[in-house]
């Protein structure tokens, strides 16, 4: 009896994850196709893939589409969809990792002051310094702001001698408030006519995506995601408790710091190119755990996949709901995330 049950559990585990990943990949490709096809100018799906294949292998497919269609697909929507995939995957993985090292199911990339630091940098660039390094000024300052905010959180937590999980979160929240106050001062001091640019940036959007810039988030995401995957088993151990993790040979304080810094790198570069997009990191890992369980060797790739798919659809919604206007994507993720959160609360209470 016990034998068959455990055998079943093993079969279930081994068949579950590949099926989940395969299904997820298919869904990701379908979502990607839709994201490129849908918009103010609809593009048929076969044209979408024709353009992409033709770009990858020139002459492979006969060109039956107009130059303007090709430009819409290749220059505007494809890089935008790829940015959505990277931002969604990155934020979801950061959320999942931070939830483990803080043992707080509500941990989220924005919790730790990272995003407010990014916002501060972006506002500085948009309203005060001018675009001194061209298009890259806003992403660059946003990224530096995010890193600076993380550094401040770490200094504060060291100063307050708090390397414990919950107090690190509190330090993040405190620093976040202070930096947002500073950012608001920057907005207040600026020309009121210019502030609407800031509002748009703060609400998040993928409209800035360009091929020439996609490499930055891609490189950081690949390196950081690889490191997190490498540490998946340590993340599992961290969910049990600091002292137990330490008796398993994990240098708890240093490991938690490393995860914070890696999380800041990913979030910083994503915030730099997409503005502030909330709730992805909070919500996606919970959905993934329901599907594949709590082992981080499965939670991390699952979160990357579901985060990417979720953000693709959030962007589709943002572009179509008030077409031809682009609605800020942060409104979509905030709305969906908030409703999800309420549902989660109800579910947890009934489980207890």
């Amino acid at each position: 009896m016990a034998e068959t049950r455990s055998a079943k559990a093993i079969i279930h585990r081994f068949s579950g994850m590949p099926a989940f990943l395969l299904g997820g990949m298919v869904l990701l490709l379908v979502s990607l196709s839709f994201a490129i096809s849908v918009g103010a100018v609809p593009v048929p799906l076969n044209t979408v893939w024709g353009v992409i294949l033709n770009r990858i292998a020139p002459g492979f497919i006969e060109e039956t589409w107009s130059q303007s269609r090709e430009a819409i697909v290749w220059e505007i929507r494809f890089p935008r969809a790829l940015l959505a995939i990277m931002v969604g995957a990155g934020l979801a993985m950061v959320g999942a990792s931070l939830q483990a090292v803080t043992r707080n199911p509500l941990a989220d990339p924005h919790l730790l002051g990272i995003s407010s630091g990014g916002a501060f940098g972006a506002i500085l660039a948009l309203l005060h310094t001018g675009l001194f390094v061209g298009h890259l000024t806003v992403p660059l300052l946003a990224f530096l702001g995010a890193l600076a905010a993380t550094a401040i959180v770490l200094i504060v937590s060291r100063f307050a001698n708090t390397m414990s999980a919950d107090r690190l979160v509190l330090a993040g929240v405190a620093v976040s408030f202070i930096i947002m106050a500073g950012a608001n001062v920057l907005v207040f001091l600026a020309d009121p006519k210019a502030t609407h640019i800031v509002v748009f940036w703060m609400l998040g959007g993928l409209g800035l995506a360009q091929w020439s810039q996609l490499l930055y988030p891609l490189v950081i995401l690949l390196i950081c995601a690889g490191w997190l995957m490498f540490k998946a088993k340590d993340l599992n151990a961290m969910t049990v408790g600091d002292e137990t993790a330490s008796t398993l040979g994990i240098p708890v304080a240093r490991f938690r710091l490393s995860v914070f810094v890696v999380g800041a790198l990913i979030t910083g570069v994503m915030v730099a190119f997409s503005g502030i997009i909330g709730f992805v990191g909070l919500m996606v890992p919970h959905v993934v755990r329901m599907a594949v369980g709590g082992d981080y060797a499965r939670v991390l790739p699952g979160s990357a996949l579901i985060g990417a798919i979720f953000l693709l659809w959030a962007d589709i919604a943002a572009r179509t709901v008030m077409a031809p206007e682009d609605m800020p994507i942060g409104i979509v993720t905030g709305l969906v995330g908030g409703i999800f959160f309420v549902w989660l609360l109800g579910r947890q209470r009934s489980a207890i």
Partner: protein
Amino acid sequence: MKAAKLSVEDLSWSSDRGAATLLHSTSFSLDTGRVLGIVGPNGAGKTTLLRLLYRFYRPTTGTVRIDGDDIWSLSAQAVARRVAAVLQEQPSDFALTVGEIVALGRTPHRRGIGGATGSRDKVIVEDALDRLELRGLVGRHLGTLSGGERQRVMVARALAQEPRLLILDEPTNHLDIRHQLEVLDLIRSLPLTIVTSLHDLNLAAGVCDDVLLLHSGHAVGFGPPAKVLSEVAVSDAFQIVARKEQLSLSNTDHLTFHLQKQGSHS
């Protein structure tokens, strides 16, 4: 399984900020395979001593040696291959299954990229699951288990670590009588050196080869329970009146506790 020899020399600890000394110079040694019970009132320093033994606190003075090696001259991972601990931490529910939690015990033995689990790891995890009769619960989430079942999972996780020294912090807390007896029975049956803190002095006297009595951070007695847990020492440490009585059927010593001297009942 191989048991370790534990020796503690001049061990003391005070918090970083130089506040009160929570453990004053303590020395004792424990031979392979013996069970040591650490007893004392709340705040006597039991947890502090345990944390020093499983390398969570760095000693202010003194050393902890496992088979002759100072645990702070070894890496955290090397110590984790010799010492496992079952603590009172309640794992937050991140949907890990019983099997996955027990497999965490293999963490310090992992080598190579991503910590791929070998066939040896699987055998050890299955042995630990069998030993604590957890086979039927392998796929269950920790959050759905009872207190006794969780405790068994954490012990199995510690055994999967293949330790030579097992440390337990109040393993009988919050367990009903049957589960308490089962945990104590397990402690007796494991061929390991074991250090456990215990609240119940009579349980400690029954299960331990040696006891260490702590009182406000001082070790006030170390040795066989019958010797250390005397009426005077226990009365003094716990600020009560303890009396050693004889149970009439089993003819064993049993401590009873009173707030005042007998005879002044009101």
